[in-house]
């Protein structure tokens, strides 16, 4: 049993280790190890296309997770105040957004936006001649990522809200706090870890997404799109270096979000 567990852990981590190891290879070939070097990190950092793709990815991830967190949290907080039919419908939409495969979301967004642009662009040209036509790019990427990320935030914040101690809110009301003060001083601090965790998970998702982005990116290149295209052209140590950096970065995000969730779980309801 123990042996089996060790084998599984090896299976899980060996591939990551291989990539990290070969990213430090000094050779040109990605598959033979030629002494230790960090040259491929330098190459990647000096590659204009890599940096541009990274910045694009970070921008899309930041904006879409901010939108998702704001609107998702607002929705999760408001839902208990709305009527039952609406809540059921809304929950169904949330689960659909999470369950429908990314590839279908990508396709649906692609053709829906393409259709919308076909209708809107002639109108806009009529109104403001010379205005740049609407097209795919940052806007469509952010929209498509916000959808999934928002559903994710709603689920996380709702779960935390359900686990919250109601009596604190009642106590606050009994002590004559107005609803806004209760929200700011009681509800929000308790929800904060879940909100931040939702934001970080959304951010990681957006940073890692290739499938949806490949449909709606237009000409924009995000980091996963760049990496995927490079893999298609052949494996290079530079990709290993980028991959290792991405892995370390998403690990850091994961650790932060987990620590936050853990802290909230450990902290008892009484302050």
């Amino acid at each position: 049993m123990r042996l089996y567990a060790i084998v599984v852990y090896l299976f899980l981590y060996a591939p990551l280790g291989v990539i990290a190891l070969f990213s430090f290879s000094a050779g040109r070939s990605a598959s033979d190890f030629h002494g230790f070097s960090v040259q491929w990190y330098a190459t990647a950092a000096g590659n204009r296309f890599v940096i541009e793709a990274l910045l694009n990815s970070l921008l899309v991830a930041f904006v879409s997770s901010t939108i998702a967190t704001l609107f998702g949290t607002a929705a999760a907080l408001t839902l208990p105040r709305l009527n039952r039919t609406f809540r059921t419908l809304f929950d169904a939409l949330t689960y659909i957004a999470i369950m429908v495969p990314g590839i279908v979301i990508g396709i649906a967004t692609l053709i829906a936006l393409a259709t919308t642009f076909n209708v809107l662009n002639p109108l806009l040209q009529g109104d403001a001649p010379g205005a740049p036509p609407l097209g795919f790019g940052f806007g469509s990427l952010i929209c498509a990522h916000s959808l999934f990320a928002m559903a994710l935030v709603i689920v996380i914040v709702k779960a935390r809200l359900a686990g919250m101690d109601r009596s604190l809110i009642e106590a606050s009301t009994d002590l004559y706090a107005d609803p806004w003060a209760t929200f700011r001083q009681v509800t929000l601090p308790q929800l904060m870890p879940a909100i931040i965790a939702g934001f970080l998970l959304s951010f990681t998702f957006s940073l890692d997404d290739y499938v949806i982005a490949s449909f709606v990116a237009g000409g924009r290149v995000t980091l996963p799109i760049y990496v995927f295209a490079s893999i298609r052209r052949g494996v290079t140590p530079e990709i290993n270096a980028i991959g290792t950096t991405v892995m370390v970065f998403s690990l850091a995000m994961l650790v932060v979000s987990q620590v936050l969730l853990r802290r909230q779980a450990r902290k008892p309801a009484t302050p």
Partner: protein
Amino acid sequence: MREPRKWDWTAILLISPSVAIFLGLLVMPILVVLVLSFGERAEAGGYQAAFTFAQYANLPARWAAFRNTLTLAPLGTIICLIAAYPLAYYLAVKVSARNRLLLLVLVIVPFWTSFLIRTYAWIFILGGKGIPALLDAIGLADVRLINTPFAVLVGIVYGYLPLMVFPIYVSLERLDKRLLEASDDLGASPRRTFLQVTLPLSAPGAVTGCMLVFILLMGEYLIPALLGGGKVFFIGNALVDLFLQSRNWPFGSAVALSLVIIMLVTVTVYLRMTLKNRGLRDQALV
């Protein structure tokens, strides 16, 4: 208690952005896909208005993609289950509470690192200079691993194992240990206790895990694209081809909707079959 109000304007204001996102970016796009799937392909690609079932009648043209998805997705799910159960059992039952959390986190961590990079690692390992080179050294020449169904299955198990371990672990961990003692006291062998107590009680976790993995596998694109090398392709790969290369939107829409419908039907039938017991079903869906 708040007195019931007819229109809660704050609530409406707060909920409307998310409703707008759901309507504009989920409901409307899926309706567009539905409309397009009954249309025709325009000369230059894209869409021409029509009402025809021709696209659906044409689905067998992509039979290979459906066949691959419908064989490798369930097979991959079952292999994940078989591989994950002993590990989940080990973590929930055998490991000391102190190490448990760390070991559990170690299972989940890979799931949150870049999926693209993790799959790409296997191109490296299964490719010419990886395992085949090692096999060559011990006398097994010309073993080709990459771009085979085997490579795709390895990628699947690697990618989705953590997702399977977690729910099974949760159901095993929640299991009332006194039941095991009771079974033991009543003279059941450890094997019998496992088969008649542990296994049935961990079924909801296994069902949830299988469902999660299966749903994600049905729409899988990256693993076949990277490890199947155009030879082993899924519906997802056919969709990318239809939308981005041949620009046959109506047919692509019909394929996409069929994928969603197959997914919904299999998951529903699967839940019906596995969880006849209503209590079990509720637990599995948490």
